């Protein structure tokens, strides 16, 4: 009986061997796949087991972490003044994932990023409690507050940039929301989120980055830049070839101006001062669709912008002649984000150099060592320094004695452009009020701003870039200059 016994011994050995092999397959070969599987709750548990790093503005954290008791997620994200900072930080919820900086910088904020490897290893030996690193933003608290205060109860967005570096100084979108209300994973959080999602005013939409509007007359600045760059006109005070009335090409429809303004053969400076549709419409037509697209591309149109949060692409499309003429005055199929118009203003203010916009100045390890510092980077040169200064002069005239007088700041040179974009079929809905501007001090321009107010409540006749949007831009610029 011993021979079969020996075989049974081998058989039992094979059974154990099979288990050992299977175990190696499971715990060695497939370990990574299983441990990071989307259904594996441990990933989430680990994620919230430590205090999340903070997002910092002006040296102070605008976020925080609180300990929770009601679930296996130990720490919950909280925001100080959530609605004010939500357009910058995004949200980070135990149940509903995260967005914007909270999402993109998650590795640093949770402390799991590979860049923190040595830090983590070190704290493993020293026994320090694991925490996340910090993200230092470029934002200016005073400017952000001024933007929100200016927008108040109205729907709209403000973007302020530092033209010389591309740093985002203010990023406001109203109505806003408090990400703290759904940061946990209870039923209450879910209800709060549902309420936000169902809100008709779309408080979770980041209007500064993810909504495209017709830019209206503010776009005339781009058309003017294209005219100068392509040599259509050289002197901003020479008379242009602009008949009045002017009929749209391939059409019998005359392009109208707002009111009875001196636009016939007006110089560039005067045309911008009065915001002549006929002058810029014809200019766009004279340049042609291709050259206009070329110019807008240089300003950053037609592709998404990452700073590092993604902003939708602003569109200046291929189009037929009448549409191209209309796009030249910021109507028709021309659509931009507020960020894009701020980039236009900043490129002009920075003597033609467009800097890559960014909002993360530094990344810090949990021990506050700086592991990344942003280096400023030029994105493109949409226009020559000389031409940029010409457009500056035109924009400064607008603020000095044109449609943008509401943006004046005493003792500071301000250039700007108003816009009132028609909206809806046959201009049936209330128009958007736009204002783009920059301020200039002794050494270059510290701030460029774009403001859009999509106000559904104001009296139609009151809606104008100069009336509604310019004061907001002024307050934001003033806040930046005062904080220097």
């Amino acid at each position, binding site marked *: 009986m*011993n021979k*079969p016994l020996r075989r049974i*011994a081998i058989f039992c050995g094979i059974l*154990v061997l099979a288990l050992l092999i299977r*175990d190696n397959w*499971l*715990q060695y070969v497939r370990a990574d796949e299983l441990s990071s599987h989307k259904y594996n709750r441990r990933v989430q548990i680990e994620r919230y087991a430590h205090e999340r790093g903070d997002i910092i503005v002006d040296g102070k954290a605008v976020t925080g972490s609180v300990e929770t008791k009601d679930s296996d997620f130990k720490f919950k994200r909280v925001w100080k003044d959530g609605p004010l900072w939500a357009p910058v930080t995004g949200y980070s919820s135990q149940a509903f994932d995260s967005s914007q900086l909270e999402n993109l910088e998650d590795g640093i904020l949770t402390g799991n990023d590979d860049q923190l490897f040595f830090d983590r290893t070190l704290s493993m030996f020293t026994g320090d409690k694991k925490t996340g690193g910090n993200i230092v933003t470029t934002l200016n608290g005073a400017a952000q507050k001024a933007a929100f205060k200016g927008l108040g109860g109205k729907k709209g967005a403000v973007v302020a940039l530092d033209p010389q570096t591309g740093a985002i100084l203010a990023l406001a979108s109203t109505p806003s929301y408090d990400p703290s209300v759904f940061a946990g994973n209870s039923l209450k959080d879910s209800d709060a989120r549902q309420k936000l999602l169902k809100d008709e005013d779309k408080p979770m939409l980041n209007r500064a980055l993810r909504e495209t509007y017709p830019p209206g007359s503010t776009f005339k600045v781009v058309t003017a830049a294209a005219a100068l760059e392509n040599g259509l006109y050289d002197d901003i005070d020479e008379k242009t070839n602009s008949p009045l009335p002017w009929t749209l090409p391939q059409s019998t429809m005359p392009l109208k101006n707002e009111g009875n303004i001196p636009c016939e053969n007006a110089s560039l400076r005067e045309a911008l001062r009065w915001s002549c549709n006929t002058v810029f419409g014809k200019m766009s037509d004279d340049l042609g669709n291709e050259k206009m697209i070329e110019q807008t591309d240089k300003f950053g149109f037609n592709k998404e912008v990452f700073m590092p949060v993604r902003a939708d692409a602003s569109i200046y499309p291929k189009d037929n002649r009448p549409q191209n003429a209309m796009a030249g005055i910021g109507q028709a199929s021309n659509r931009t984000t507020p960020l894009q118009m701020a980039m236009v203003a900043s490129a002009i203010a920075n003597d033609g150099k467009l800097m890559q916009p960014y909002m993360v100045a530094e990344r810090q390890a949990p021990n506050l060592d700086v592991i990344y510092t942003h280096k400023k980077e030029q994105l493109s040169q949409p226009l020559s320094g000389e031409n940029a200064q010409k457009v500056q002069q035109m924009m400064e005239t607008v603020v000095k004695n044109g449609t943008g007088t509401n943006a004046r700041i005493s003792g500071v040179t301000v250039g700007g452009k108003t816009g009132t974009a028609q909206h809806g079929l046959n201009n049936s809905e209330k128009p958007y009020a736009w204002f783009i501007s920059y301020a200039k001090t002794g050494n270059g321009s510290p701030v460029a701003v774009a403001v859009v107010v999509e106000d559904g409540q104001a009296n139609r006749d009151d809606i104008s870039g100069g009336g509604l949007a310019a004061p907001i831009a002024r307050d934001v610029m003033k806040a930046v200059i005062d904080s220097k």
Partner: protein
Amino acid sequence: MSVVTNTTTIGAIDAPSRRNTELALVVFAVFISVFAYANVGLALNGELPSGMLGYGAGLALLGGVAHLAVRRFAKYADPLLLPLATLLNGLGLALIWRLDQSERLLRLPSFAPAASKQLIFSAMGVALFIGVLILLKDHRILQRYTYISMVLALILLILPMFFPAQFGAKIWITIPGLGSIQPGEFAKIVIAVFFSGYLMVKRDALALASRRFMGMYLPRGRDLGPILMVWAMSILILVFETDLGTSLLFFGMFIVMLYVATERTSWIVFGLAMSAAGAVGVASFEPHVQDRVTAWLDPFGGWGTHAASEQMAQVLMSFGSGGTLGTGLGQGNSDLILFAANTDFILATVGEELGLAGMMAFLLLYGLIVERGVRTALAARDPFGKLLAIGLSGAFAIQVFVVAGGVMGLIPLTGMTMPFLAAGGSSVIANWALIGILLRISDTARRPAPAPAPSSDAEMTQVVRP
């Protein structure tokens, strides 16, 4: 001359009993278990658990008393089996105690802390182990009870049918005040006794008086009939009780013992063919089985819709999250498995918290028990002892394979407990008894033959005078 001289080949010097080796190993096993217990306490509460002394003393007492019993009643028994059982039982207690602290499990209405109960059951198991050593002077006595064992096994198997099903299987009998017993665990031992007794008598008839059929030797019906009937009945009962693991176990044990008894390879072929037919048959009409097979084939596919798949997926993620070295005792989240985390799925906790290294150690411990059992069978001098030892250790091996393989997704999950490790009274008690019987057989096998009486003849012929 007072010195006894001897010329026979069997020495009069005592064969080494290895009892001291066993004692050292038991001490080691207790030490490791107490260390694990302390580890859990430190990880979960940051301090040495208050019950550590009591737990350590309890386990040391169990191991010590068992060792003394072996020393006294089975002097030549295998020295490894008792320490292995003590170690597994002790680590099992630490693991169960660790899961007792899980807040997630405590929120479950069906969950109750099980460590203290398990300690009591372990004590009962060791008591039964000692009982076996004392009462069973010679394992061959069991031969007398061949047919009684058959009846007893059938009774044990039929009993749960009269009790309500728990968790989809009718494998428990509930005794008011005492709790539930899983008679299948005991039936495993009893049926091994029956098989050994019957096969020992009939092995020649089965092996030799057979007809050739398609190149295989098939025995006569009157030889195979009774055993086939008992086996078929137990399988049928288990299928009706939906206790798949145990039916697989019985079937495997039957094939192994039949093969060893008859030494005919055709039995393996025959057995595998039957089991394949049986498996397909059962799977085609049993929804319970179909669920398990679906969960096995695609554990992540049924997420959110299919409880069995979801649990299987949780187990796999538990193993994966443990990785090579594990999270450390008390620091994993194997309690996410929720239902049956401390019974059928206790290996997932081992996998997650002790990692691949710990799992391999555990599998090798089980492998060692099995191979010591097979060695006992090899050493046994009587066919009954051989059959009983191989039956018990084969059953043990199959049980380990079915449970661990099921939990690790190697084969469909069938729902049995890991011997000694999982929470559950019947299992611990029955497996201690199993170890007791194996020790008894090995004691008989390794006991040196009694020194022959001094032969005056030998004395005389040795004297050579010049």
